């Protein structure tokens, strides 16, 4: 069990740790995002803060929790970790290496928990001996660089978006786009598609949505973290996609909402399942998450794309936590659950301030009761909800 004397790769005070965790929050449109090789830098949020012995469960000898996984929720975990460390002295070491890497590492049990943007299917989950829970909700946002078009001005529906990404609609003044946008001056410009070059949970959510709304897409491309894109250029990471979209006139790409917002990119408005045109916002993500039927989802396997609801943003996704069902170190898992419980209860505003959507309270109550039921060792449940 690693003690506090672990040689940290990079020890930062909570303040600098925060800052390091959030460069993209402060990055303006013109800054160089691509320089962040975050997959190379396992961040250790350490600090010199006071130990407050008032939170007993976390102090049972476990002083650091290690996590590997998705890059998308990393800023939120970083902020939670800094605040949690201040309160309890427990460090969280989050390696933002990507969802696939997170799954690999929790499978090998080299970390205490994994974080993935795409849920594992129930069969895969059982096979790996893992359990999963939603932690944070976010949205994927199509962004464009079309001269003369402001955020939210361009209206698209699922079928048209799929046709564009299939390379079948090749110009912005195409009749299909024009019929959705009466009165909008669309330039006679070639469409350049920008997609992810690396495997990504963001791509998974985006292609899942396209597969649901377009049979042609499902047939030709399908859903995956990495797919055979029929057209376009590939950028590495959200930064790569964002910088390509901003460089190339006539480009369309997709990035995480928080990223689009902070880079001041031009998002589109999408027609949702209810037939309403919606713009991405915390409210529209929450609407999609609230309408979802978590209680009946096996292993919390639920994809939030194309959910019903008047206000639902159609490309919404949850970021998941993966935990071993039969942990080798129950104490460590208890420490993890204590942290997650704290984050559910106290981390909502922190998440919202970073443009992430905390999961609805009804959902985390359900999650915590599920912890109580499933994560049980011989000596009893690993976690008991404080106020069930």
């Amino acid at each position, binding site marked *: 069990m690693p003690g506090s004397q672990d040689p940290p790769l990079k020890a930062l005070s909570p303040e600098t740790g925060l800052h390091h965790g959030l460069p993209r929050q402060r990055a303006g449109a013109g800054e160089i995002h691509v320089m962040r090789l975050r997959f190379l830098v396992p961040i250790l949020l350490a600090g010199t803060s006071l130990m407050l012995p008032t939170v007993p469960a976390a102090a049972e000898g476990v002083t650091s929790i290690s996590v590997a996984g998705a890059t998308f929720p990393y800023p939120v975990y970083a902020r939670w970790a800094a605040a949690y460390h201040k309160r309890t002295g427990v460090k969280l070491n989050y390696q933002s290496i990507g969802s696939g890497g997170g799954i690999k590492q929790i499978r090998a049990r080299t970390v205490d928990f994994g974080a993935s943007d795409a849920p594992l299917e129930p069969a895969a989950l059982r096979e790996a001996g893992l359990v999963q829970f939603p932690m944070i909700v976010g949205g994927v946002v199509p962004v464009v660089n079309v001269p003369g078009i402001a955020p939210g001005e361009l209206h698209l529906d699922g079928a048209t978006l799929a046709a564009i990404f299939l390379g079948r609609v090749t110009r912005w003044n195409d009749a299909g786009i024009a019929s959705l946008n009466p009165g909008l001056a669309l330039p006679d410009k070639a469409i350049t598609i920008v997609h992810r*070059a690396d495997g990504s949970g963001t791509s998974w959510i985006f292609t899942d949505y396209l597969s649901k709304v377009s049979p042609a897409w499902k047939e030709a491309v399908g859903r995956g973290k990495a797919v055979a894109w029929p057209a376009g250029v590939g950028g590495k990471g959200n930064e790569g996609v964002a910088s390509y979209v901003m460089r190339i006139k006539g480009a369309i790409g997709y990035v995480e909402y928080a990223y689009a917002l902070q880079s001041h990119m031009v998002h589109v408005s999408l027609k949702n399942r209810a037939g309403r045109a919606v713009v991405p916002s915390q409210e529209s993500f929450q609407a999609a998450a609230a309408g979802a039927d978590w209680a009946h989802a096996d292993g919390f396997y639920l994809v939030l794309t194309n959910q019903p609801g008047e206000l639902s943003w159609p490309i919404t996704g949850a970021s998941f936590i993966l935990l071993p069902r039969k942990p080798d170190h129950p104490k460590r898992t208890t420490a993890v659950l204590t942290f997650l419980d704290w984050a559910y209860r106290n981390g909502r505003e922190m998440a919202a301030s970073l443009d992430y959507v905390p999961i609805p309270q009804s959902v985390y109550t359900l999650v915590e009761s599920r912890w109580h039921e499933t994560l049980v060792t011989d000596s009893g449940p690993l976690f008991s909800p404080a106020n069930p």
Partner: protein
Amino acid sequence: MTQSAPRTRRGVSGGSVSLADLLFRGSARIAAWLVLALVLGIGLRLALGSAPALARFGPGFLASAEWNAVSERFGALVPLVGTLVTSTLAMLIAVPASFGIAIFVTELAPPLVRRPVAMAIELLAAIPSIIYGIWGLFAFAPFFADHLQPWLTEHLGELPLAGRLFQGPPMGIGVFTASLILSIMVIPFVSSVMRDVFEVVPHELKESAYAMGATTWEVLRHVVFPYTRVGVMGGILLGLGRALGETMAVTFVIGNAHRLSASLFMPGNTISSALANEFTEAVGEMYTSSLVALGLVLFGLTFVVLAMARLLLYRIGRQSGTGRA
């Protein structure tokens, strides 16, 4: 100081082999074998890792342009062609430019200019490749897309056959931009080697030629070039090796698309940038194994290129008899 005295004495006295000599010989030998063992180890590891993919796709792996992680069908053609095209194009730009630089610095420039120019070129070699990538993406690509590319497409895109090379939307990124960035990165290596070998041409030879009334060009053509042929080839190979393996700068500007297109202005992919992009998130045995197989292809490609170059050097050396190996 105290150690050097006895060593010199023994060295001078000759005959018996000292302990230090033995140690030195042993460690040098180990170092040499270690390199060989490393190369073998890398090759073996790559072969093992790529076995599942190669067993499934067979030799067709090299010929297939498909790269689909959903249906798990992979082929190396697109990144392989991308690697070859960008490296070739980069060398086509870099070699003449390096020749010019080396000739200017050694033969034409006034002495006062030589050192600053030579130092500037060596400084270029010290810049990390990612800086070139960032420059390419944020400075060169927009400029190219706005000013040069439309002009090129308009004037060259209509040509009968070659026109297809210059068509496509003005994105600024793509195979051509990647090649250009690569050539800029390769120039310092090639030109500084060329400069070094040009400088070792004996003055007697050059002055004899001048004395016979040869012009600067004639001296270069008939004295300097033949004398330095092997060294120049070595410099070019060094550059080619770098171009084949360069990752980050290319990843920034090539567009990372697994598609073959006739146009140099369209996005493509190279083996090393495909690896850099996809390895961390590759899930499933076939995907990972196919990526390792790409690595094996690059390993093999580098080996073949180097072997061919060695052969060429050997031939040149035998024909002219003036080559310095």
